[in-house]
């Protein structure tokens, strides 16, 4: 399979990874951190109660789909996108594109990615993979979370592309149609950063941005009331580590990858102060990593009394404070 003519590379995140991979294979030399930063990927949102989640949860990136949308708008790239009502139609269209040797990104339910270990797979409809070919009844997949190209049975891919429920993919697919010869990266980086600062500092909703981190800090002591028992609570607390480190973030909730974006941006924009800001963001990421390690430790040891959860809450408040200062400085650097 390694001989299949598609350059596969693991990436930090599935959507920025799929977009970067498609663009790289189409001849555009762009890094994942640039894709992530230009599309204002960095974010925070806390959801205490939602119909589609069994337990409170949080996100550390912007809305699924907006990495592609924002990047296209800011770089002038045109992506062809399609959705389908009928699974037969959606699978037929995918085959037609593959016959023309067009690698295609598709939105799927992560749960049906059989090549990943069982403990990793959860029902979530916003995973992105690139389908690069077909061999008999199997599709050849480039998944940012897997080291090599892999095969996936037709039945699994079909199920994954047409899973129902929240943010149902409806067979959604996309691929780059045209890439401009000249790209104004400076303008795109500034725009993406401005929007990221707005998202973190100004969105007038109490559960989003910095306010979302503060809400998370305050509400975490209520988590035991949602749990079936101690083991359930332990599982959910340890998931903090997974959401920050393992579920496609590049480590410490995307903060390390965002530091890389700022470092690259510093060179492109000729802004030495961004070099300092990138260092600061790396340290902010280190602080988030301490939280993920702390959460996994107290979860494993079942030290989940109010005192420990308050301690975790205080660590989160610390992150909210430093991120608030950081994003204000980043915003000011745009002037």
């Amino acid at each position, binding site marked *: 399979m390694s001989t299949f003519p598609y350059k596969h590379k693991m990436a930090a995140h599935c959507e920025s990874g799929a977009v970067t991979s498609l663009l790289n294979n189409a001849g555009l030399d762009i890094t994942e951190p640039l894709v992530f930063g230009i599309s204002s990927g960095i974010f925070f949102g806390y959801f205490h109660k939602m119909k589609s989640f069994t337990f409170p949860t949080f996100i550390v990136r912007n809305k699924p789909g907006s990495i592609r949308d924002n990047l296209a708008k800011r770089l002038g790239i045109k992506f062809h996108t399609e959705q389908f009502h009928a699974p037969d139609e959606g699978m037929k269209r995918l085959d037609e594109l593959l016959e023309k040797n067009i690698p295609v990104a598709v939105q799927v339910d992560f749960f049906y990615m059989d090549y990943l*270990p069982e403990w990793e797979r959860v*029902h979530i409809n916003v995973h992105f993979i690139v389908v690069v070919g077909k061999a008999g009844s199997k599709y050849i997949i480039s998944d940012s979370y897997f080291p090599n190209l892999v095969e996936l049975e037709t039945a699994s891919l079909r199920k994954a592309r047409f899973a129902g429920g929240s943010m149902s993919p409806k067979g959604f697919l996309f691929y780059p149609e045209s890439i401009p010869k000249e790209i104004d990266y400076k303008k795109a980086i500034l725009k993406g950063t401005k929007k990221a600062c707005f998202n973190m500092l100004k969105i007038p909703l109490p559960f989003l941005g910095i306010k979302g981190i503060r809400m998370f800090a305050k509400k975490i002591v209520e988590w035991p009331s949602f749990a079936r028992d101690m083991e359930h609570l332990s599982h959910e607390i340890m998931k903090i580590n997974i959401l920050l480190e393992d579920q496609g973030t590049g480590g410490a909730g995307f903060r390390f990858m965002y530091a890389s974006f700022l470092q690259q941006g510093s060179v492109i924009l000729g802004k030495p102060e961004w070099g300092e800001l990138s260092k600061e963001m790396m340290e902010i990421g280190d602080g988030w990593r301490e939280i993920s390690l702390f959460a996994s430790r107290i979860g494993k040891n079942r030290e989940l009394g109010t005192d420990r959860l308050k301690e975790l809450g205080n660590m989160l408040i610390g992150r909210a404070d430093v991120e608030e200062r950081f994003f204000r400085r980043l915003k000011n650097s745009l002037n």
Partner: protein
Amino acid sequence: MKEKDGFIDCPQQQVILYVEKEDGKYEPMQTGSYITKNFLDDYEMKRRHLEESLKRQVLSCEVSPIYYYMVLEDLTLSELSARAGIRKGKLKKHLEASHFNAISQKTLQLYADVFNITVLDILNLLTVNTDDSTNTNTGS
């Protein structure tokens, strides 16, 4: 994070971590998952306990096998309803052991597709396995 601090030896689950390389550049490195490396056994134990507890509830007719898989796959009632295409009111009944026998094979198939298992897997939950230490009915 420095490159030397980022390496985790865990071939079962590889991830990309952005680290500071020796030349000061922040770049990706392929490494292993910290939590899988250190706590997979804990996850598996909790999972086993949950399966056992749910199975006991199924065998003592407190809940149906649909409930078993819904909880195991971490789906809410709304989410399962939307995924299987079955009305919430009807689904609620299907979670009760007393209504399970009334579920048609066609409807069971809808659930099985969501859970990525076979109808037989769902029905097998109701059978008594004498080797199964979780079975509350054995030895009675």
